[in-house]
C-alpha cells in the first residue's frame, strides 16, 4: 500500500491547523470585543465555508490564482509562488475552508469570560496582550482544543476544494480523500477500503479524545 497520500493528508492538516491557530486568535479576539457595524459582515464571511459548496471556493480560487491572469502571474513571476496545483495552494485554500471551525469555538470561549475579569487584569496594570496570554487563553483551553481538533479533522475530510485547485498530483496534492476516489474509479476497492478504514479510525479516535477531555471523563482515571 502507498502511504504517500495519508502522509500528505496529515501534513496538510497539521500545517493548516498551526496557521489557523495563529490567525484565528486575533480574528476571534476582535470579533468577541467588537460592536462595529462591520461585525456581521466579517462574521458572515468567516462562516461562509460552512454552507458554501467547496467547489465554489475552489472555482474562485482557481480563477484568482491562475497564471493566466494578472494576480496569478504576478505572484508567480515576482514572488515565485505558484498556488495552483501546489501544496502551498492547498494550505491556503484549507486555511480559508476551515476558518470557521477554528474561529467559532475561540470566539465563543472569549465571549464567555465575564468582562470584569479582563478589566480586573487591566486595573492591575496588565496590557491587553498580557491579559490575553495569561488570563483569557488559559481559561478557554477546552475551546482552543475543540478548535484545533475540528480544524484538523475538517482538513482531513476535505475533498472538493482540494480537487479543484490541487488536482491529483502524487506526492504533491494527492491527499487520502482523493486517493480513495481514484482507487474507486480504477475499481481497486481493496486499496480504497484500506485508506477509508484508516481515515475512519483516526478521525473517530481524534474526536473521541476531544469529547473525553472536554467532558472531563478522563479525570476519573487520574484523580
Amino acid at each position, binding site marked *: 500500500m502507498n502511504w504517500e497520500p495519508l502522509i500528505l493528508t496529515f501534513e496538510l492538516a497539521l500545517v493548516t491547523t498551526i496557521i489557523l491557530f495563529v490567525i484565528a486568535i486575533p480574528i476571534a479576539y476582535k470579533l468577541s470585543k467588537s460592536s462595529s457595524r462591520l461585525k456581521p459582515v466579517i462574521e458572515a464571511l468567516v462562516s461562509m465555508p460552512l454552507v458554501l459548496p467547496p467547489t465554489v471556493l475552489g472555482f474562485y480560487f482557481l480563477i484568482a490564482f491562475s497564471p493566466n491572469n494578472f494576480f496569478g502571474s504576478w505572484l508567480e513571476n515576482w514572488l515565485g509562488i505558484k498556488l495552483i496545483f501546489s501544496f502551498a495552494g492547498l494550505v491556503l485554500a484549507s486555511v480559508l475552508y476551515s476558518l470557521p471551525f477554528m474561529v467559532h469555538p475561540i470566539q465563543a470561549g472569549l465571549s464567555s469570560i465575564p468582562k470584569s475579569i479582563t*478589566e*480586573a487584569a*487591566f486595573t*492591575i*496594570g496588565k496590557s491587553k496582550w498580557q491579559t490575553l496570554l495569561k488570563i483569557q487563553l488559559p481559561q478557554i483551553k477546552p475551546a482552543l482544543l475543540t478548535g484545533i481538533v475540528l480544524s484538523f479533522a475538517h482538513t482531513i475530510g476535505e475533498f472538493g476544494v482540494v480537487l479543484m485547485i490541487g488536482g491529483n498530483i502524487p506526492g504533491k496534492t494527492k491527499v487520502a480523500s482523493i486517493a480513495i476516489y481514484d482507487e474507486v474509479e480504477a475499481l481497486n476497492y481493496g486499496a480504497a477500503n484500506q485508506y477509508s478504514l484508516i481515515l475512519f479510525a483516526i478521525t473517530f479516535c481524534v474526536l473521541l479524545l476531544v469529547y473525553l477531555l472536554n467532558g472531563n471523563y478522563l479525570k476519573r482515571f487520574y484523580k
Partner: protein
Amino acid sequence: MIKLQLQKTLQAASGTMLLDLDLNIFKGQFVSLYGPSGAGKTSTLRMIAGLLTPDSGRLEVGEEVWFDASTKKNKSVQSRGVGYVFQDYALFPHMTVLENLNFAKAKNTSRKSIDHLIEVVELGELKHRKPETLSGGQKQRVALARALVQQPEILLLDEPLAALDASIRYKLQGYLKLVHEEFNLTTILISHDVSEIVKLSDYVYQLDSGKIIAKGTPEELFMGQSISGKFKFTGEILKIQFEETISVLSILVNTQLVKVVVSHEEAASLQPGDQVLVVSKAFNPLVYKLDS
C-alpha cells in the same frame, strides 16, 4: 485630592441619561456613593479607573491630569494604578489565591508586601485554593487583597459586600476600615446599605439619574431625624383587616412582616399595595446583643 468634573451620556434602561458630576474628594477620605440602581454610581467609578471614557470634562488626581477632554489627554487604565474591587469579585478562576495575588505584582512589589496583605485579610489558610472552592466572603477578601498588591493610593469598591449575608458583611466592613487606615488609602465605596455607609465613610454623595442630589457627612444625610428618638420604616401594606374597634394593617418592612394597629378613620384612606412610612417612639425598646 481628586477633582472630578465629568460628563457622560449613558444608555440606561429608560433611554439615555446624562451623567453630570462635579465632586472633590480629599486624600485619605473614605467616600460613599449612594443612590438607586442606574443612578450612575458604577459609571462614576469606571471613569475614575479609566475603564470608561467620559464625553467631556476633566479629572485631576493630586497634581496630575488623568483626563481632559479639551486636550484629549486620557491616562490609560493600566497606568492609573487604582485598586478596583468588582461586585462579582472577578478573580482569575484558573489561578490559586496566591497566584491571583502574585499576578497583580508590579516590578517593584516585594514578596513581603504580599505576605503582609495575606496576613491582614487572613488568607493564609486559603493560599493554595482555587477561587471556585471559596465562599463569597473569602472571594471578596482575595479580591480586596489583589486590588491592594500594587499599593494604590485610590481604592474603588463597587458594592463589594452586596451579595454577602449580614454577619459576613459586618466582618468584611471591618477589613475595609482596617485596610483604608493601614494603607493610607483614598477610598470610594458604592453601597446601598445605610448602616455600612454610616459605619465606614467620612462623606457621602447621593446620586439620582446621573446627578448629585445630596452630599454631606453620613450623619447629616441619614440621621437628621432619628436623633429625635423615633424609629422609621418604610413598607408596603399587604392586607387590611377591619376588627370591631380598630383596623389591623399587615405591612411588609424589608423582609419582615409586621402588624400595626390603626383606627378605622386612618385605615379608610389606605389600601393594600400602598407604600407607607411607619413611625414609632423609641423610648422603650428591647435591645438584645447579637453574636457576630
